């Protein structure tokens, strides 16, 4: 990687996460050492139950009962208060969930504006920002739809827009395409890869080996440990690889056509 000299965003040292007690004791994460640099696009793969999601939850500070070291931006999270962790989640981390997790009572724009509430932004500013974010995801006309009126692909784009609205440094995506067909999946992956190009750190859990082509680094896990850790081609060269949907290239030539196609999904 080109930016190895900058301090790593995430450092894990012998990270362990235990579930259960006594006889039922079981390590979901069993000694993980991992260093993640700023700007990496990491795909984590592995069979069910190998601890991928648990790792993501730990990285996202949702789960703080861990053993071992976790340093975020050079600071150990061990002695952070719950309030401070919530603050970091609000400022630095964006979550994209497999099952989208939009609040069904709220319309699209309110869902996207949700993280901004906890940043303490006034209502009008929230709406402006959320609206701008939705436009960049070509969902400008869907602002006042309810989540159940959207297609799966649209819903996930809303979820990604929500994850990004507070300009997080790290995006954690737990099987973001798990519930989508392959066409919609690749649109989502294009979005993520665009974000990566803007310099965001993305950590994504996936079951689908096809999607790892977008990542700059692929980690496979087995039984709570890192099995393989492969660095892929740098981003620039990856652009030339034939992609399942040649969307990014087309978008550059004919934005309107691509936009229409996207909206159809």
């Amino acid at each position: 990687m080109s930016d190895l000299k900058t301090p790593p965003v995430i450092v894990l040292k012998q990270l362990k996460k235990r579930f259960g007690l006594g006889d039922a004791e079981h390590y979901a994460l069993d000694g993980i050492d991992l260093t993640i640099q700023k700007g990496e696009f990491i795909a984590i793969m592995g069979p069910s139950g190998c601890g991928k999601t648990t790792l993501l939850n730990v990285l996202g500070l949702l789960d703080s009962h861990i053993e071992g070291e976790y340093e975020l931006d050079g600071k150990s999270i061990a002695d952070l208060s719950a309030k401070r962790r919530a603050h970091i989640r609000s400022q630095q981390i964006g979550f994209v969930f497999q099952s989208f997790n939009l609040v069904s009572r709220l319309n699209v724009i309110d869902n996207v504006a949700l993280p901004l509430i906890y940043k303490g932004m006034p209502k009008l500013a929230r709406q402006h920002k959320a609206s701008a974010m939705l436009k960049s995801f070509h969902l400008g006309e869907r602002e006042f739809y309810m989540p159940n009126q959207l297609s799966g692909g649209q819903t996930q784009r809303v979820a990604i827009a929500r994850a990004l609205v507070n300009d997080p440094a790290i995006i954690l995506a737990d099987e973001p395409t798990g519930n989508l067909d392959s066409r919609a999946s690749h649109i989502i992956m294009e979005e993520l890869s665009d974000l990566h190009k803007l310099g965001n750190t993305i950590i994504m859990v996936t079951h689908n080996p096809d999607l790892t082509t977008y990542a700059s680094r692929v980690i496979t896990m087995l039984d709570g440990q890192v099995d393989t850790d492969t660095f892929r081609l740098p981003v620039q060269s990856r652009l030339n690889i034939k992609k399942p949907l040649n969307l990014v290239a087309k978008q550059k030539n004919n934005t309107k056509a691509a936009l229409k196609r996207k909206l159809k999904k």
Partner: protein
Amino acid sequence: MKILFANHIHIARQSIASSRMRSVLTMLGVTIGVASITTIFALSAGASKIVIDQVDALGGNIAVIRPGAHSDGALSGIVQLPVGQQYSASTLSEVDIKSIEKISNVKAVAPLIILGGSVSGVSQGSPRTQILATTPNLEQISNLEVSDGQFLDPSLSGSTAVIGPQLSVDLFGTDQSIGKTVTVKGQPFTIIGILKRTNDPINYNSVDFDNAVIIDLEDGRGLIQGASQIQQINVQSESVEHLSGIITNINKALLKNHFGQADFTVLSGSEIAQPTSSIFTALAGVSVAIAAISLIVGGVGIMNIMLVSVAERTREIGIRKALGATNGDIVSQFLIESLALSIGGGITGYIVGYILAFFISTFLTFDPVFNWEIAGIALTVSLVIGTVFGLYPAIRAARKDPIVSLRQYD
């Protein structure tokens, strides 16, 4: 913080609007509770106002001594039972009257013995007719006016009585009953005067003068075998300025008579205005009980609905936490929702309470009173209910593990 607060209110409104039926039913308990409280307080304030106006009309130079220790507090006027009216022995005695009469600047003293018992003339009177034994001074102190004849006069020989105009009509079919004989507890009395109609069943003497028979103190004592049953002593001072000095002296003198035991109460000004009508007291007692029960039931209802709401929105809580909500944010979100329910119920109850009070007042001789204390009580009660019963569900919501919450499907 301000932004979050506004947002929580917005969320609460949305959430309540999305399940309108459920919210309205939940509010009902608080509504009933606050409505009963508002009704009682509005009516009791109305009753008090009448008495205060009476005291003011008399020039504000009246002090009243009642047996029993003074009980303080906002509710005492409502839940207090009628002061030892008929059967228990009073702590006030002849000696006390004598001591008070000796105090300087006292213009007049009138003891009141209020009895119940059969009163009859041509026809039988109501068993609730009050028999008041007192001295001629009462006419002056309480500003009683005689429409026909004269007030009590000790110089007249024989047993004499003054009766209220309504009682006169009830007993003799006419308000011209002077010279006729009224039988009080088996004893015959000659009527020497008819009072002017006052239409004031509620007053600080606890006597409905329209419907009472007034006899001389000595005759009254004869009817109860000389027992000491003075329910109240009215004292009139020379002027308003002297009143506070007189009250101090009365307290001193009576404490000495009672061997240092404060088993009496000296009241003046608005303190006198505690409503003492027994019907009213019974009504108020029942309403307070209803209010307390329905407030507790209403509170439990709010807690129940909030727990349901928390369970329904477990996933939402998980999402909000993942997106950066602190535990405090979640607590205030749900607390504000339960407060919105209880305050909504409170405001409705306040309005319903006044409608009820005005309806009831059509059967009474006084009107309910609007004042900020009643609004304050209604608001405080709803705030307390919302907080007390909303806190546990809110804390429970905040304690939810975001990972587990996110896994739940709605």
